[in-house]
């Protein structure tokens, strides 16, 4: 196998890791205003992802860095071409991340409500826009001879890509709800399970429509058969997840939604291969695993680094999930870090 193929697969794995992991914490952020009835319940939701969201987000940073290292042309075209969506994603992530850290540091209801909004929009915007971005990658965008994006911002908001955005959003919401039902106790868990059943159906409809459209978009692609197989498996996984939710088997349901996201992302990457960013102007202008790649020397070094360290990362991140495996309930939380009455006597 070519090093470029290996790196295409590794980039796919990094994005899969990112969407599977951050997918549920985006989902939790989006459903928080609807699912939680008071501050204590909101804190349960936030703390259910508290120890892990930051580690989840590093998958994005590594996916970006690895794309830069392995496929500089892809990185340059993608990031300069999708300029405004990425800007919006960055601003959203900034507010969301700061919100987790700062929300509990002051007692005022207005302070917390402001950060709750930041968590909601900060989760909603990337959950939607990542789907739009991937929709556009798969659909192909206007790349000229020099691999520069010559389209406009509005070109990126085409119906197919927007459907992609709804697809990631609905999948992440379902994934998040299943996560909440798996990781909490009490009323929140019950409500999350009921909502997951509804959200799952919506997600299934949108996902099937999006993957179906993708099949039409990528007609003539080299590995369309493999794409169809993976997409079908993704749909099957989602059905399995829904059955598991109904049966109250939350662990299986979570595996199901995680599998759905992983397979759906994998199917998109397979549908692209060997292109990484098809040009809608002329197939000759498309970025491919070959013309976008770094030298074999760089790819070789990076392969060693990835082979040694990725399993290590999975191991210690797995350890974190193990340490914080217990369900959280309202009564598991220590008093809010800054109780309103007496700021001097705060407890950490």
């Amino acid at each position, binding site marked *: 196998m070519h090093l470029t193929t290996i790196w295409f697969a590794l980039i796919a794995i990094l994005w899969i890791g990112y969407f599977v992991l951050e997918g549920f914490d985006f989902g939790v952020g989006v459903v928080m205003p609807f699912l939680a009835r008071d501050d204590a319940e909101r804190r349960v939701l936030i703390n259910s992802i508290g120890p892990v969201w930051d580690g989840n987000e590093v998958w994005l940073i590594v996916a970006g860095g690895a794309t830069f290292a392995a496929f500089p042309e892809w990185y340059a075209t993608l990031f300069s071409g999708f300029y405004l969506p990425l800007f919006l994603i960055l601003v959203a992530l900034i507010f969301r991340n*700061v919100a987790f850290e700062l929300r509990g540091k002051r007692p005022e209801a207005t302070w917390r409500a402001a950060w709750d909004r930041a968590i909601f929009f900060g989760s909603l915007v990337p959950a939607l826009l990542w789907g739009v971005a991937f929709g556009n990658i798969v659909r192909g965008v206007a790349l000229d001879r020099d691999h520069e994006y010559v389209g406009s911002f509005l070109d990126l908001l085409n119906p197919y890509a927007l459907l992609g955005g709804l697809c990631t959003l609905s999948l992440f919401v379902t994934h998040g709800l299943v996560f909440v039902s798996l990781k909490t106790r009490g009323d929140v868990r019950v409500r999350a399970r009921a909502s997951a059943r509804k959200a799952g159906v919506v997600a299934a409809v949108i996902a099937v429509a999006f993957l179906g459209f993708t099949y039409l978009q990528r007609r003539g692609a080299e590995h369309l058969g493999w794409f169809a197989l993976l997409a079908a498996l993704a749909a099957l996984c989602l059905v399995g997840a829904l059955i598991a939710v109904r049966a109250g088997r939350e662990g299986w349901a979570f595996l199901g939604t995680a599998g759905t996201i992983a397979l759906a992302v994998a199917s998109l990457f397979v549908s692209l291969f060997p292109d990484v960013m098809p040009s809608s102007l002329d197939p000759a202008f498309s970025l491919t695993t070959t013309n976008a790649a770094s030298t074999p020397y760089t790819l070789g070094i990076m392969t060693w680094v990835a082979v040694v360290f990725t399993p290590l990362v999975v191991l*210690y991140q797995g350890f974190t999930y193990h340490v914080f495996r217990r369900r959280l309930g309202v009564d598991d939380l220590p008093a809010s870090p800054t109780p309103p009455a007496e700021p001097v006597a705060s*407890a950490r």
Partner: protein
Amino acid sequence: MNTLGVARWQFGITTVYHFLFVPLTIGLAFLVAGLQTAHHRSRDEQWLRLTNFFGKLFLINFAMGVVTGIVQEFQFGMNWSAYSRFVGDIFGAPLAIEGLLAFFLESTFLGLWIFGRGRLSARLHLATIWIAALGSLLSAYFILAANSFMQHPVGYRFNPERRRAELTDIVAVLTNRVAVVTFAHTICSAFLTAGAFVLGVAIWQLARHPTRDAAAFRKAVKLGAAVCLVAAAGVAASGDAQAKVMTEVQPMKMAAAEALYDTRRHAGFSLFTVGTLGGQEELYSVRVPGLLSYLATGDGDGTVDGIRDTEAAYRAKYGPGDYAPNIPLTYWTFRLMIGVGMLAAAAAAWALWAIRGQRLPSGKWAVAAAIVLPLTPLLGNSFGWIFTEMGRQPWIVFGLMPTASGVSPSVSLGEVLVSLIGFTLVYGVLAVIEVRLLIDVIRRGLPPLPASTGAPGASADDKRRLAFAY
């Protein structure tokens, strides 16, 4: 106003802002780990309360460093796509390795540290903060190796067919001598920054609330001051070494640091200059004779190449063009960097003297010093980076690619303006929130210890309860 200018302003603003948090985070990670280790060894609760107090301040900072760091990684592709295409084969590798080796460690183990008290054994919990601190150190090395390639490209060849620089020797890139000295200098100043922060906060507490936890904050003063003094010595030594490397690999930058137009033996270092710095006779300056020669060559009688000769040499090598950076900017940032850094060291020495015996620092001046002190290294770090990046101009990669060729050709002026204004506003809002929050936490002083959840007498309910939650 053009895309290039706006993109440069954006890089400058976002990078300087990002780097307000980075050194403080690196240094504080180690100091907090040290405080927790002191508690682990001595079982003295004062250390634990200091750990929790500075840990809280550290985390607020860390969050800001993380979010502004993501912007940095995306920015290369967004605003500097031509640069990214040109150097991606080399520059991308340390960036990717940084993420895979360092960021994962930092974020995962910090998550364990924040939420893990009571869940993990005391020993393992202590290990998590050390691992996170180590992660931040690794991260610094790889990103500085990437930056050092831009200052002094090594381990590459130019591929005319692909019109890009390609990696030929990763070891050369990672052991770039610019990277080695820059790492030493940056880490020493990170400790200076964190030491000054701890010292400033502790002096403020003693001066404003002399009866509140004075014993604990005396310890913090001593720790902060000691770290400051040792780090300042390290900053000076590493800076001296860095100046010599810089003179060899980027002679123009050294000449620009002194606004030295004509090549000179026994060149002096001016503390300040009144005049234009434009190459004409200066009106007035205070000079230390031979100091520039000593900085540049290690010999007070050494010869330092001036801007005019250096520019002539660059023209001969790289073709016609303007190769001098913005001289007043490099001149002033260079001395302000040194000046404010030395100020922090002097303040540390004063603080140790002020708390000698059982004395406490008191009065308006102590409070003012406590507030100014943590700011001096922050300023020094900013001046240092503005100097080193502006001193590299007009190159984005020294000798290989001019900055003007690096900007994204497909991005419009409007787009870059939106993101420049957007990030500046967002960062401004965050700065206000962050500073107010830090002041809030500092004002409240040491938090009381939470009821011991792991104690033998604790009920099952207490044991379930998290020791910390957002």
